[in-house]
Structures are given as structure tokens and as C-alpha cells.
């Protein structure tokens, strides 16, 4: 099982953080365009789901699968969006994404006085990246194929 990449979006649509562990296909656009596309895409998936649903939704959109990857989505009530791409064999990892938010993001970004919640998380937030890598590589869904 494989973890591909992670996007974190602010509620205004800005991409706060992007990290990839394994990515076999790059898009033809620049990274900035890709973030915009991803954010707009998630926005339309959310409104699509909201309108199509036959009953009232609680959490709303959770994930989708294609033939080779699964996009997992978690949104905090403050509007932060976490998008983690994994392979298809991964079951519901909502609690993992929540844990990622509550233990890594809150502890090393929100509680860091030098880091405003609106800022793009760049490479000098070493401790955040380090802890994130550690968290992801300790997951059971992160396997050997990922490390090579």
C-alpha cells in the first residue's frame, strides 16, 4: 500500500502545504496551477455531493477512487482542507487525517508563534516536515514500495 502525496488548503483556497512521497505522474501544468485546479475541483465535488445527496449529509464528501488511486478528504470546521492520495486498498482513513491535523498541524504550525495560520508552510518549518514525514512513514498504509 502506498501514500502518494498530501495537499493542505486554507479556507480561502490557498495551498498552504504540499508534500509528495511517491509520484509517478506529474501534471503538465505548473505547480501553482495544479493547486488551483485541485482546490477548485474539491470545491465542485463538495457542492456536487451536497446537491446530489438524497438525504441530509453530516460529514459530506469523504473520498473517491479511480482504478489506481484513492483521494481521501478531510475538512476541519475552520475550513482547512487535507487531501491525501493513497492507493486503492486503503480503507477509511478519516481518523488518520484527523490525527494528522490535531497532532502534527496544530502542534507544529498553529502553536508555533513564528508561523501564521495564513502563511504558506515553507521549508524552514523543518520540525513540521520532519514530524509529518515521521507520522506518515509510521502509518501501516505506508509500505516498502514507498520508501524505494
Amino acid at each position, binding site marked *: 500500500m502506498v501514500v502518494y502525496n498530501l495537499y493542505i488548503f486554507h479556507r480561502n483556497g490557498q495551498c498552504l502545504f504540499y508534500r509528495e512521497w*511517491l509520484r509517478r505522474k506529474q*501534471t503538465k501544468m505548473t505547480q501553482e496551477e495544479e493547486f488551483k485546479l485541485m482546490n477548485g475541483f474539491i470545491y465542485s465535488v463538495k457542492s456536487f455531493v451536497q446537491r446530489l445527496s438524497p438525504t441530509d*449529509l453530516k*460529514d459530506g464528501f469523504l473520498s473517491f*477512487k479511480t482504478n489506481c488511486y484513492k483521494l481521501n478528504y478531510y475538512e476541519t470546521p475552520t475550513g482547512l482542507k487535507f487531501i491525501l492520495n493513497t492507493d486503492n486498498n486503503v480503507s477509511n482513513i478519516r481518523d488518520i487525517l484527523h490525527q494528522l491535523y490535531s497532532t502534527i498541524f496544530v502542534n507544529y504550525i498553529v502553536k508555533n508563534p513564528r508561523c501564521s495560520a495564513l502563511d504558506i508552510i515553507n521549508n524552514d518549518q523543518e520540525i513540521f516536515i520532519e514530524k509529518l514525514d515521521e507520522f506518515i512513514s509510521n502509518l501501516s498504509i505506508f509500505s516498502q514500495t514507498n520508501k524505494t
Partner: protein
Amino acid sequence: MVVHSFYVINRSGGLIFSYEHSIPKIELEKTFSYPLDFVFKRTQKGAVVEFGQRDGIKVGHTILSINGTQVRGNYIDFSAPSSINNDDDQQISTSTSHDVIEYLSDSTNYPVTIKFGRPRLNGNEKLILASIFHSMYAIACQLSPELNSTGIRELETDQFKLNCFQSITGIKFLALTDIRQGNVDALLKRSYELYSDYALKNPFYSIDQPIWCPLFQETVKQAIDSLEKTGSPYT
């Protein structure tokens, strides 16, 4: 385990077939006294609850009727039924069309009985959603981190699951089901079979146009029924 609805989308994103199998009807009627706890928002479809969920009335529900009189969009016309029921009222009858939100903000109209409900999709909205899905499908394969990805095959929420099967010819078959419903892929493959048998072999059907073939609808319904009962779309 339920199949809610079934759609067919053509190669250019147009909805060519839609069938509603079992959509739960969410309606609630309650009597309220002044002031109301809800905050309403005017939309194209009428007054929508924007804030103040209570007693099963959720954000996003619209006002369907007030005191038993149907609401049309944002307006309500009390004159129509009262003039039929009561001959005396006919003389007073003037323009009695009210704006729903204004009517509810007037304390003299209370107590009032309001029926709320989750708005249903109309034909036009289904068309829009089908073409949105068509582009979502394409973007999902563009944003793939892995080579040779198709578009969305299975979309999950906490309340329903949307399965999509795209044939080699580019026709998409969609089924909206309960999250626990299994074997939906088999249903979609079966409906592709039915599509080739009953829609395409119909001499009056032109390709990529809406399917108005009663036999197709009937057999799709049978397949869905059989999936719900036996777990397999084949009878």
C-alpha cells in the same frame, strides 16, 4: 440496502437517461409561534433555512407550505384555495400574494404551521450535475499521482455512494446507492448490456440523444430490484 437513482451520461457530458428508484422523502410539518428561530435565505428555489437547525429541520431545507398552502418559489398566494372553500372571501379577495420571508417576519400571522423539506432535484439540475460530473471525471484523471488513471469510479460520502462505470465508447453509467450496497459494478455492467440491447437496437433511437425507451427503463428497474433483493442484477 438501497439504490437511490441511476443515470446515463453521454460522451459529451449530457444526461441521456435518469431514473429515480427510491429517493427518501424528507418532509416535516410543525406549528411555530413568534419569533421563529430560523434564519432564512432567498434562493431561486425559495426560502432556505440558513441557520438554526432544530427538531429535524436542517440547514438547506426549503419551506414547502405555510398553513397548508403551497409555496411557489419565494411567494405564497393564500387567495387561490380560500376563494374556492369560502364564497364570502371572494369579495375581499385582492392581491394576496406574499413574500414568504416577509410573511413570516410579521408577528400578526402567528401561530403558523410550516412544512419544511429537502429540495428535490428537478430535470434541469440533473442535467447540470451530470455535466459537472463529466468534468470532475476528467479532472480526477488529470490530477492523478499515478500513471494511467481513469476518472472517478466510486465516490463516497457519509450518506451515499456514487459508482460510475465508463464504457470503452465513453458512455458513463452512474448509480447512486446506500453506502452499504454491494455489487454496484455488476449492476452498471448489466445496465450497459441493457443499453446496448434495448436503447441502441431501437430503430427510433439516435445516438447521444435522451433515451425515451420504455423497455430500457423497465429492464433497468428489474435489474435494480433484483440487485436489492438477491445481491445480483441478473434474474
